């Protein structure tokens, strides 16, 4: 699975991209797993109301299913335009 982080999520996690071998599941389960990996992840994902998710470059919810070949991105609410 390819994980991408943008804006302050990237800064808190400390990297913009990483590969992880993970069992299939939903986004909520993936976040719970990430938070167990270290305080940087725990801080980045502390308030899920401030986190948005895309799966394979489509906006997705916490209940979206993800598998080994998916690209999953985490970022704050967008502020372009």
């Amino acid at each position, binding site marked *: 699975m390819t994980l991408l982080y943008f804006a302050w999520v990237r800064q808190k996690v400390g990297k913009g991209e990483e590969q992880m071998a993970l069992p299939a599941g939903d986004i909520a389960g993936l976040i719970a797993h990430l938070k167990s990996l270290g305080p940087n992840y725990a801080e980045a994902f502390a308030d899920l109301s401030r986190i948005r998710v895309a799966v394979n*470059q489509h906006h997705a919810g916490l209940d979206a299913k993800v598998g080994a070949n998916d690209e999953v991105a985490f970022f*704050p609410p967008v*502020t372009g*335009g």
Partner: protein
Amino acid sequence: MKISIRIQREDFDLNREVTMLAGDGESGAVASFTGHVRKEEDLSTLTLEHYPHMTEAEIARLVGEAGIRWELTGVTIVHRVGPLKPGERIVLVAIASQHRHAAFAACEFLMDYLKTHAPFWKEETRGSEHHWVEHRASDDEAAKRWQK
């Protein structure tokens, strides 16, 4: 419908973009929007980050939706990334149509959805401080107007 979607660091030439959209005489009306970095007391730079590939894909989806809702002859969207100074342009949305009301409505629709759906993030530099701009609830409200 002519479609041009570009994410770039460089500025754009609005005159050229509108001429490319409507200079052939196929459209009577072009509505355009440009967003600019506002000057604020201690703001030195606004830096835009984005999610490459998804940005273009998401904007293309929004343009497709606009093309279903209104009769359009062309859409040009240019969004800049990287560091920008006060007064510089951030974004262009230009819509060509045979009818001005369709052009205005689609232009406003695309701006409202760009602000709520396209994966860009703005970081302000004020003196030696950097901070991420917060998403505004009023932008969500603006986008909700268009929900059927």
